[in-house]
């Protein structure tokens, strides 16, 4: 998906950067202050964070600590007040990296069928965009149907959003985020509004999708079991102004199962994360 041509690659990293496989995403002292003057709110203290291609990183932390802010920085929706954000080795925005995003609110367009809703990115992103008219009834449609089947929505393409339950809409939301095969998937508490069973079902689906397609994923969540089940790495953030206070690898083998989440090592990990967040909330870190 990435348009980068390795041979014409111009490194934009400062010379001090260590010589190793270049991470896909790199925050270097990136900080954000919202507003100015008396209303200024420091949401993110200058932060360093490297994320390798194909990684699955979970961001956890007390609410309001700047998790969504990091996603917005990486998606180039806001500019860093300080420092730099590199994506694909170049300053964010310099190069088009395929990005898929999904929030807790599925925001399906009520006037489009589910199939057309999830095909929306194909209308916007190149190279699909220029072929959209020609292929929307054939190749792209099949692509949408195939993805719907993967998330368990086979046969629902013709329905309108109001005909689907919250869990089904969230499945469709995942499809919309993935339809253009993005290199980078940004998920902001996508399962936050779902019941426990639906949520666990979607974990398995998301894990499968990630294992099949290997996008780089940043998942913001407040569910520590979710973070430990899905991610290869969990970053814990402190209360506002946010900074990363812990960065744990999650060693469990894939594909992970729900049963594994009740095993001692898994429970120990989530307990440790919980302790870190409690400390972060009470300002002990």
């Amino acid at each position: 998906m990435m348009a980068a041509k390795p041979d014409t690659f111009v490194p934009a990293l400062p010379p001090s950067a260590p010589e190793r496989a270049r991470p896909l995403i790199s925050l270097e002292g990136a900080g954000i202050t919202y507003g100015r003057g008396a209303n200024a709110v420091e949401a993110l203290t200058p932060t360093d964070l490297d994320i390798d291609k194909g990684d699955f990183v979970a961001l956890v932390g007390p609410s309001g600590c700047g998790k969504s802010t990091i996603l917005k920085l990486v998606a180039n929706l806001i500019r860093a007040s300080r420092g730099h954000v590199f994506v694909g080795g170049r300053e964010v925005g310099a190069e088009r990296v395929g990005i898929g995003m999904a929030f807790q609110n599925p925001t399906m367009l009520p006037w489009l069928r589910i199939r057309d809703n999830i095909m929306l990115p194909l209308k916007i992103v190149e190279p699909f965009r220029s072929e959209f008219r020609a292929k929307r009834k054939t190749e792209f449609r099949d692509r949408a149907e195939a993805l719907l089947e993967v998330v368990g929505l086979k046969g629902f393409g013709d329905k309108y959003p109001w005909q689907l339950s919250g869990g089904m809409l969230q499945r469709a939301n995942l499809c919309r985020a993935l339809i253009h095969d993005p290199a980078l998937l940004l998920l902001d508490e996508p399962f936050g509004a779902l019941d426990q069973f639906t949520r666990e079902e979607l974990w398995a689906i998301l894990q499968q999708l990630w294992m099949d397609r290997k996008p780089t994923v940043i998942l913001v969540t407040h569910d520590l079991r979710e973070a430990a089940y899905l991610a290869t790495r969990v970053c814990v953030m402190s209360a506002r102004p946010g900074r990363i206070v812990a960065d744990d690898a999650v060693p469990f083998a894939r594909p992970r199962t729900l049963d594994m989440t009740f095993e001692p090592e898994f429970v120990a990990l989530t307990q440790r994360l919980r302790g870190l967040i409690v400390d972060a909330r009470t300002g002990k870190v």
Partner: protein
Amino acid sequence: MEFLSERARQKLKSALLILSFFVLWEVACLVFKVSEIVLPRPTVILGALWQFFPGIRPHLIQTLYTTLVGFALGVGIGVVIGAVIGVSRVAYDTAYPLLVGFSSIPKVAVVPIFVLWFGAGTTPAILTSMVICIFPIVVNVATGLATTEPELEDVLKALGAKKLDILWNVSLPRAMPYFFASLKVAITLAFVGTVLSETVASNRGIGNLMMIASSNFNVPLVFAGLFLLAGLGVALYVIFSLIERRVAGWAMRKQDFAMG
């Protein structure tokens, strides 16, 4: 009535209620012996309509033409202003107070100005109906365009969508229900504007006809004019409702949409 569907029964009920209103009017006039100079009975009005129809027709066509032209201009201008205001903060802050001020002016007051500029006749009537229907359209189009969910906007911007992409794929369709709601208000207002201007400064149109009829104490003819205006208003309202169902049906009651 068991053989009718729930909806058909409801429609039948409201039709009967409307009919009974006119029957009541008729009966009340007969029982209390109300003079025709004060309030003619519906049957008398319909009789007058039938009797004078050949004479009324050119006026009817004139009013309909004037209203539709004024309405079309109003919609065109209203959509453009509404779109600009809806997407640009600066335009919003500048134009909104102006528009509110302008729409607070009673439109009777602008007719003499139009007459001064363009002379009596069709032009002031068109302009009056135009200015009267601009405001609701501007407000609704601007509101409709401005109400995009921030999350959806983020999703699209992360995809690299341009402002125009978002406008075309999201904002415009989303604004459609608002737009049609305003069309239905605007078309009835457009009639008010036309008739107002015709009454003050024209020698043609239903407004003028009613003025002349009332100065001749032909009260049934005055009411015939009112009936015609009401009929035209309802007819155009229905037409826009039907278009609305096709274009923006998704925003209406979901069950109906599913069936339609």
